[in-house]
């Protein structure tokens, strides 16, 4: 097995009265592709945000290459975040800028590239997600699925070591979804990008994942290979992958 890369140690987070994460421990190895599944509101996005310190835990810690990220400040924190790329659930494109400027923003602000280099990278990333034609459009002129694809191009623009995908294919048609899934697999297998993908879509999960983790009730209900989850007899897991209303899961 590859070395341990990102470690979550007894991570807890609550909002007001609600305990969203309740002592989550997880070891993410370099180069692996993990899918996080779970009901809406089970804390998948919250967990993802903790990984690059967009949120701070109430308890527990996160180590990246053995370094506790809570101790990072200033330039070190920026450097850590630049190793990650995140595709947000709602794409989170800056509405005031064109698609091309959104994709190039991280490059521009890092001040390590010339304008020509940036333009070249932006076009190649937009090509990967099939959005070159929309380069000069504003986010408000795009559909939800198109925004997601631009968000993906933006996230991979700086060639991160780790990609966090928050529901990359929700709201996309089946064909485009498959294109995005292929891209995730390609980045993982060819470029060895460690990937953590939150998804509801079991078909994508089986296609993308080396490993599937299910969050339920603030803890990890299942952690294993796609093989193992298919054969798992835990009724909660079974109900979720079957997508059935009948079973032990109560939707609040």
């Amino acid at each position: 097995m590859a070395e341990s890369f990102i470690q979550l140690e007894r991570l807890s987070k609550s909002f007001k009265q609600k305990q969203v994460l309740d002592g989550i421990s997880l070891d993410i190895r370099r180069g692996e592709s993990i899918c996080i599944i779970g009901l809406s509101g089970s804390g998948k996005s919250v967990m993802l945000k903790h990984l690059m310190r967009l949120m701070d835990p109430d308890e527990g810690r996160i180590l990246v290459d053995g370094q506790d990220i809570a101790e990072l400040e200033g330039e070190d924190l920026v450097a850590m975040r630049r190793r990650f790329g995140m595709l947000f659930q709602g794409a989170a494109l800056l509405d005031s800028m064109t698609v091309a400027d959104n994709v190039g923003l991280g490059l521009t602000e890092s001040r390590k590239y010339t304008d020509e280099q940036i333009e070249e990278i932006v076009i190649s990333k937009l090509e990967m997600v099939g959005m070159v034609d929309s380069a000069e459009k504003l986010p408000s002129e795009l559909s939800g699925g198109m925004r997601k694809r631009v968000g993906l191009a933006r996230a991979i623009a700086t060639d991160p070591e780790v990609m966090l995908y928050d529901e990359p294919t929700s709201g996309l048609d089946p064909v485009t979804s498959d294109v995005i899934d292929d891209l995730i697999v390609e980045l993982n297998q060819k470029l060895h990008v460690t990937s953590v993908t939150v998804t509801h879509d079991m078909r994508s999960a089986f296609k993308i994942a080396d490993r599937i983790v299910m969050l339920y009730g603030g803890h990890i209900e299942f952690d294993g290979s796609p093989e193992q989850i298919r054969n798992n007899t835990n009724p909660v897991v079974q109900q979720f992958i079957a997508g059935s209303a009948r079973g032990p899961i109560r939707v609040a």
Partner: protein
Amino acid sequence: MAEVQGLVRVGRRGISVVSWIGGISILSSRFLYHLKDIPRSARVIFEQFNSIGVKSLPLIIVIAVFVGAVSAWQAAYQFKFIGAPLRYLGQAVGKAVIMELGPVLSALVFAGRVGAGITAELGTMKVTEQIDALDSMGISPNRYLMMPRVLACMLMVPLLVVFADFVAIMGGLVVSVVGVDVSTETYLNGLKSSFQLGDLVNGLIKAWVFGLIIGLVACFEGFRTQGGAEGVGTATTQSVVISMVLVLVFDFIFTVLLFRI
């Protein structure tokens, strides 16, 4: 029991006021820290000068005309009532506008127009995760969004006040000539004889502080917005109310400090 609950409520209020002051103090220190990034953010700052300053000018001018006109009319009415000579009309309008009305009314209008706009913009960015997205790319929202906006507020309010003062005095002149039968010369002589550069400077220093307050409050409230479109509405209202109250409080403090009775 009821007393205890009341006490708890008061306590919570107190804590939230203290944490608000703490939060805005931290934001102020971030603002000072990021002033070193002015050169690299020049383009963004320039855009803010334009959208915050230049676009506020028409509204400020319209309001200033009427403020000057009303001041002149009211002053003339009071002068007649107490039998004061109308040659002091220019002086009365000039002093009132330069020392109080120009800075304070411009700041209140600015809080309503620009402060609200900034909070709504940043609040929307917060609830749609655009702020998180900046952080995720290693871009500091304080440097990229907050510093240029606060800087623009701080520099644009005094500039707008200069315009407002001038336009209000002209508005007063029109009323004096047309409505009160004071000649242009008399009005301007009254103005000139009482004009002191110190008054103008005091007014502009106040305007500068008001701009800083409005910018900081607007960004602070924007960044801490929570809970969708409704949250953005609440934050915007809160931002305007707080900055207007603070402008008036600081105006009072300035007045007491500068004009010892």
